[in-house]
């Protein structure tokens, strides 16, 4: 059930995010926050499929890379107006999700997780093999910005993140979300309840892929460059860590986790070689003492007071 406190907290969080570039007025901070918002879209979309149904996706970067490269091809190789990327990237990512989902989500067991992991690794290598078109290790350079002002682009990204999160949260709270949670509980029982489990799994993967691909395109048009690192397993794992830190299955938690860990990485930059060490200690601390995550469980405790 959505309480008044939830609405207030959501509005407050959006207001803070909207105020950050006005307070700091630094293109460096705007840049970091734009990237963090993209991570927020990736973490939320991972959580929608995998957090709710419990079918872990170890290759979310497949959809991110597909979206980003779609933007790169259209813009750099074919000279399309960059706005087209925002339409084409989710479309291509959804095609990839169908290609992956149809053979593997009909099955129970680890096939989906493993297929996603390998598909993203295969795509990473394909970008290097077909370097004539993809630019190989260097990737595609010289994408056009969608908006000239970085501040305006930050607000565009924030707007799309908020809209995506609202959509995902709306579906998660509907009867559709109830079915996804039931799939997590027991797939066979779900079938015995007359639910077409395969349909719901594939459909949620499509939604998840669309938003991840859209985030990939937004990221590409911020960096003005796409490269094979967008298909890496490291990226997929980083997203999963953000989801765990935020609290799985809550949609808003993973967004918080993504923002927190991105900001943490940047804050620790001053520590140079100790940076990874501190980052890891913080992660281990959170995952060890708060196995349910930090942000969503914390909010669940606070909101009870407002009932």
């Amino acid at each position, binding site marked *: 059930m959505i309480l008044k406190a939830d609405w207030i907290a959501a509005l407050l969080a959006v207001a803070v995010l909207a105020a950050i570039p006005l307070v700091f007025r630094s293109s460096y901070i705007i840049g970091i926050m734009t990237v963090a918002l993209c991570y927020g879209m990736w973490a939320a979309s991972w959580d929608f499929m995998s957090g709710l149904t419990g079918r872990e996706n170890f290759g979310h970067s497949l959809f991110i890379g597909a979206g980003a490269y779609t933007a790169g091809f259209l813009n750099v190789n074919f000279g399309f107006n960059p706005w087209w990327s925002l339409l084409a990237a989710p479309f291509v990512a959804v095609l990839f999700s169908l290609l992956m989902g149809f053979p593997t989500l009909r099955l129970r067991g680890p096939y989906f997780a493993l297929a996603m992991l390998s598909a993203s690794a295969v795509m990473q290598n394909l970008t290097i093999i077909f370097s004539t078109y993809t630019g190989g290790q260097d990737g595609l350079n010289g994408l056009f910005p969608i908006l000239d002002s970085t501040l305006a682009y930050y607000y565009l990204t924030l707007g799309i993140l908020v809209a995506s999160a609202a959509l995902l949260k709306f579906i998660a709270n509907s*009867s559709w979300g*109830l*079915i996804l*949670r*039931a799939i*997590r*509980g*027991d797939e*066979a*029982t*779900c*079938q*015995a*309840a*007359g*639910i*077409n*489990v395969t349909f719901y799994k594939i459909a949620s993967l499509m939604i998840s892929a669309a938003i991840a691909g859209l985030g990939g395109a937004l990221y590409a048009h911020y960096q003005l460059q796409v490269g094979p690192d967008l298909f890496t397993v490291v990226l997929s794992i980083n997203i999963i860590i953000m989801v765990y830190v935020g609290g799985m299955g809550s949609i808003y938690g993973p967004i918080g986790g993504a923002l927190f860990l991105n900001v943490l990485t940047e804050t620790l930059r001053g520590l140079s070689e100790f940076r990874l060490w501190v980052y890891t200690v913080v992660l281990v601390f959170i995952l060890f003492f708060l196995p349910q995550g930090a942000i969503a469980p914390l909010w669940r405790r606070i909101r009870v007071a407002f009932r």
Partner: protein
Amino acid sequence: MNALLQVTGLNKRFGGLHAVKEVSFALQPGSITGVLGPNGAGKTTMFNLLTGFIRPDAGTVLFDGQSLTGLAPHQIVNRGLARTFQLARPFAGMTVTENIEVACLAPRVRQSGKPRERVRALLDQVGLGGQAEFEVDVLPYGDLRRLEIARALATKPKLLLLDEPFAGLGAAEVGPLSDLIRRLHKSEGLTIFLIEHKLREFMQLVQEIIAMDFGEIIALGTPTEIVQHPRVIEAYLGTAQNDVSLDPGAGLA
């Protein structure tokens, strides 16, 4: 009278094991029929074949005049054939109400809006009204069995398959659950097909029995006929002897 369920020549092999062998029988609408047989006789495999969780190697299943061959489990449920599992399998991490709501979303019974009132009525019907907002993880086993039945009923079945509904229940819980099944049969007119090992309740509940051993049907008949059937006695007690007869009231368990 047209049979509600007509099974013909059903076969299933698992490697060298012929788990279900040439099984044929019919269930009449409004009947309550039991499957009897020692462990490993193929009873649960037969249930899995009827409900689409396992594909048969050969044989046909006609339900309400239509073939169920090749249908997925959720499609069979939406034709009006629901089941419960031998081990209660609730949706962990969800409340009792939510567990039943999921089944109310099956295409067969789905209505617009939240099915709150239906869930309420179903929970009252199986005696879980007081636990509606509990997380299923805290329910005792007996309540989970009732939850299984409520979930199956939520899909408004014509035929209900119960796989060992009394398994794991204490003596005090068996009677009320037995009454519930009888009520569903008598007042709701539901056709019921059940597997059970607790013979005392089983014999009092069912009108007809299908006895199985080693994947085959060895006898069909009323409870009184079945307990005197030489092949049934042999399956349970070894070679039949003249002085062994079973009293349906006393039970074997």
